[in-house]
C-alpha cells in the first residue's frame, strides 16, 4: 500500500560490525517551515492523499463503531496525525519493522494491512490483525513488519531496541522504527533504551509524535525540556524536529534517518509536531483543552491542507479529489462489512494462545469447571 512497499530490497551487507562506528552524534536540527511538494512524483503525492483520506474516514468510522458498541475497550484515534503517519510509513520498506503505542490504527493501515482486518480487530473478530485477542491497542502483522501496538506507555521502546539488536546480530539491513507520544519521553524505558541503542549502535529510529498532549497533560507540564528532539543530545544521537502536518517533510526526514540507520546502524530520534484533533480516546470530551488550542488543531487539519495544496499545485482537481474520497469511502464501507460479517472467536479456543510451547500440566480450568 505504501509507495515504498514495492521497492526491492538491496543485497544484505553481510556481517558489518556496527559497534563503535558512529560518526555523527551530538547533532540536533530543527527544520522550519513548510517544504514544497518536494521531488515526489504526482502519483506518489496522490497516493499520500489517498492514504491520509483513508485513515481519516477509517477513524471516523471507528469512532462510530464505538458509539454503536461494535468496538469495545479503549479506542485512540489518529485524527489530526494522518500526515505524520503516512509520511513515516512511506519512509519504511515492507521488510522494516515498526513498533507503536496504542494509537496505531493508521499505522497498521499505512504499513500495509488491509483496512478490513484492522476494523475486524476493533470488532474483536477472528479475521482481525490479532485474531480478536488484541483489540484497538494491540495490532500485529509479521507479514508487513508491524511488531505490535502496545498499551503500556513506553513499553514498546525496549522491545524495538531489542529487535534492532537482533537485526544487528544477524547482519541484516532492516531498520526498526519505534513510535511514541510526547508524554512517553519522560518514562524510564525511554531513557534506558535510547542509551542502549546509542551504546550498541542499533538501527532504530525513535519517533516522537508531539501532539502537545498526553491525555490532559501538556508537554510543558510534563517535560523539563519541551523541545523533545533535543533529548537526543544526551545520548550523542542525531535528533531532528519536523512539521508533522507536512507529509512530504515527514517522509523526507524519516527517509533520511531510516536510510542512515540502515547504512551505519546509528540510531536517531525524530520529533514530528502535530495536533490531536479529538480527545485522548473516543470517550474523552477533552474539556481540559483551551478553545484556542482546539481551534489551532482544527485549522491545522493536515488532510484538508494537503488537499488544497495538491489542488493549487495542479496535482489534483476538485473532481479528482472527490473521486479519491469516494473510493476511500467505499474501502471503509467494505472494511466495516468485512468486520461485521466475520466470526467472533469461539470460547472453545480460549486456551489456544497462552503458550507457544504448550505443556501437559497446564491449568486449563474455566471458572465453571469442577476442580480435578
Amino acid at each position, binding site marked *: 500500500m505504501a509507495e515504498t512497499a514495492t521497492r526491492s530490497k538491496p543485497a544484505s551487507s553481510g556481517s558489518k560490525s556496527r*559497534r563503535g562506528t558512529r560518526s555523527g552524534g551530538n547533532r540536533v536540527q530543527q527544520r522550519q517551515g513548510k517544504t514544497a511538494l518536494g521531488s515526489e512524483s504526482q502519483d506518489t503525492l496522490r497516493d499520500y492523499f489517498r492514504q491520509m483520506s483513508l485513515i481519516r474516514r477509517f477513524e471516523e468510522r471507528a469512532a462510530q463503531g464505538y458509539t454503536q458498541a461494535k468496538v469495545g475497550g479503549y479506542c485512540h484515534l489518529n485524527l489530526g496525525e494522518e500526515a505524520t503517519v503516512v509520511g513515516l510509513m512511506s519512509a519504511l520498506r515492507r521488510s522494516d*519493522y515498526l*513498533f507503536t503505542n496504542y494509537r496505531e490504527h493508521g499505522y497498521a493501515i499505512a504499513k500495509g494491512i488491509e483496512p478490513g482486518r484492522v476494523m475486524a480487530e476493533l470488532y474483536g473478530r477472528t479475521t*482481525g490483525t*490479532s*485474531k*480478536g*485477542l*488484541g483489540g484497538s491497542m*494491540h495490532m*500485529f*502483522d*509479521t507479514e508487513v513488519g508491524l*511488531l*505490535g501496538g*502496545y498499551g*503500556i506507555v513506553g*513499553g514498546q*521502546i*525496549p*522491545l*524495538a*531496541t*531489542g*529487535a*534492532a*539488536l*537482533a*537485526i544487528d*546480530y544477524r547482519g541484516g539491513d532492516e531498520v526498526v522504527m519505534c513510535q511514541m507520544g510526547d508524554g512517553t519521553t519522560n518514562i*524510564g*524505558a525511554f531513557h*534506558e*533504551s535510547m*542509551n*542502549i541503542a546509542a*551504546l*550498541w549502535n542499533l538501527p532504530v529510529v525513535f519517533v516522537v509524535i508531539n501532539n502537545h498532549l498526553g491525555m490532559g497533560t501538556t508537554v510543558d507540564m510534563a517535560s523539563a525540556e519541551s523541545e523533545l528532539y533535543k533529548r537526543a543530545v544526551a545520548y550523542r544521537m542525531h535528533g531532528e524536529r519536523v512539521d508533522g502536518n507536512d507529509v512530504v517533510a515527514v517522509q523526507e526526514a524519516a527517509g533520511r534517518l531510516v536510510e542512515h540507520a540502515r547504512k551505519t546502524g546509528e540510531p536517531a530520534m525524530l520529533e514530528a509536531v502535530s495536533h490531536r484533533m479529538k480527545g485522548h480516546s473516543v470517550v474523552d470530551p477533552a474539556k481540559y483543552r483551551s478553545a484556542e488550542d482546539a481551534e489551532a488543531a482544527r485549522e491545522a487539519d493536515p488532510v484538508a491542507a494537503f488537499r488544497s495544496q495538491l489542488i493549487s499545485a495542479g496535482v489534483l482537481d476538485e473532481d479528482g479529489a472527490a473521486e479519491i474520497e469516494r473510493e476511500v469511502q467505499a474501502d471503509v464501507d467494505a472494511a466495516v462489512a468485512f468486520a461485521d460479517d466475520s466470526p467472533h472467536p469461539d470460547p472453545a479456543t480460549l486456551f*489456544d*494462545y*497462552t*503458550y*507457544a*510451547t504448550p*505443556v*501437559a*500440566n*497446564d*491449568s486449563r480450568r474455566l471458572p465453571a469447571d469442577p*476442580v*480435578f
Partner: protein
Amino acid sequence: MAVITYRQALHDTLREEMLSDENVFLIGEEIGVFEGSYKITAGLLEEFGEKRVRDTPIAEEGFVGAAVGAAMLGLRPVVELMTINFSLLALDQIVNHAAKIYGMFGGQSSAPMVLRTPGGGGQQLGATHSQNIELYYAFVPGLKVVAPSTPADARALLKASLADNDPVLFLENLALYNTKGEVPEDAPPAEIGKAGITRTGSDITIIGYSRMATVATQVAEQLSEEGISAEVIDLRSLRPLDRETLVESVRKTGCAVITEDDWLTYGVGAEIAASISDGAFDYLDAPVRRVAAAEVPLPYAKPLERAALPSAESLKTAVRQTLEAVGHRR
C-alpha cells in the same frame, strides 16, 4: 558421570548451548568482563566474544525489554538478572510484555527467552537482597517458572528452557551454587511442568522446591532413621504446576507438609495446599502444614536471619507433629 557443582552445571550447559546454536546469546550486567556476579559466565566472553556475551548498563527494564524484542525476531537470549530482587525494575517488560506477546497478538509471535536469576536468603544480605519473589512470576499465565534444586536438574531444566518457545524465568538460589551432584552428560532435557519425586515413602509427603527441596530430601533421609517413611516431591516447575504428581502422592500417604523459602501468606505453599484440598481432601488424615519464611523483611543480623528462614529442624518438627496427630507409630 561427573560430580560437579550447581554453578559448574549451569556454566557448562550455557557453553554447550551456545556452541550448538548461534542464536543463543547472553545478556546482562557484569556477565562478560567481570565474568558474572556469581561467576556462572566465567570465560564465556573470552570464548564467544562480545556479540554473544553482552555486558549491559544498569538498566534492567531496558535490557530485559531488548531481550524480549530480540527473541521476537528469533534469537534465543539468556538474560542474567543479577538477583531476583532487581527483576522488579524489569517487571513491566516481563509481565506486561514477554508474557503477553504470544496471547495478545493471537499466536503470531512469542518471546522464547530464559531469564536466569538467583534468589534466596541466608547470606546476610539484608531485606532488599534476600527475597524469594518467584511467586510474582509464577502467578502470570504466559510465563513459565522453573526452579532446579540439583546440578543435574540445573542442566536438564536449562536445556528444556532454551528449547521452549515461551519466556522462562529460571530461578537459581545463592545457597545452591556450591552444592555438588552427579550430572549425567547424556541425560535428556527435563520436561517443564513435571515435578520430581526425589525419594519415595509411605507415611507422609513433603513438598518443596529449590533450596527447600534439597533440605526436604535430607530431612527425609534423617527421619527414616526414626522409622518415618517420607516421600519427597521437588516441584521443579512453579508454572505450570504438576498437581497430579503431588495429589497422587498425598492420596497414597494421607499427610502433607509443604516447605518453601518464600513468605507464608499467599505463598507458593498456599497454592499447593489448595491443590491438595481440591484433589486429595478425602484422603487426608491430618491438616496440611506449611513451613515457610517468617513474614518480615529479612534482617541482616545472623541470629535473626536464621530464625526467619525455614530450616531442616523446623521442617522435621512439622513432619513429626503431623504424624503424631494421626497416631503414627514409629
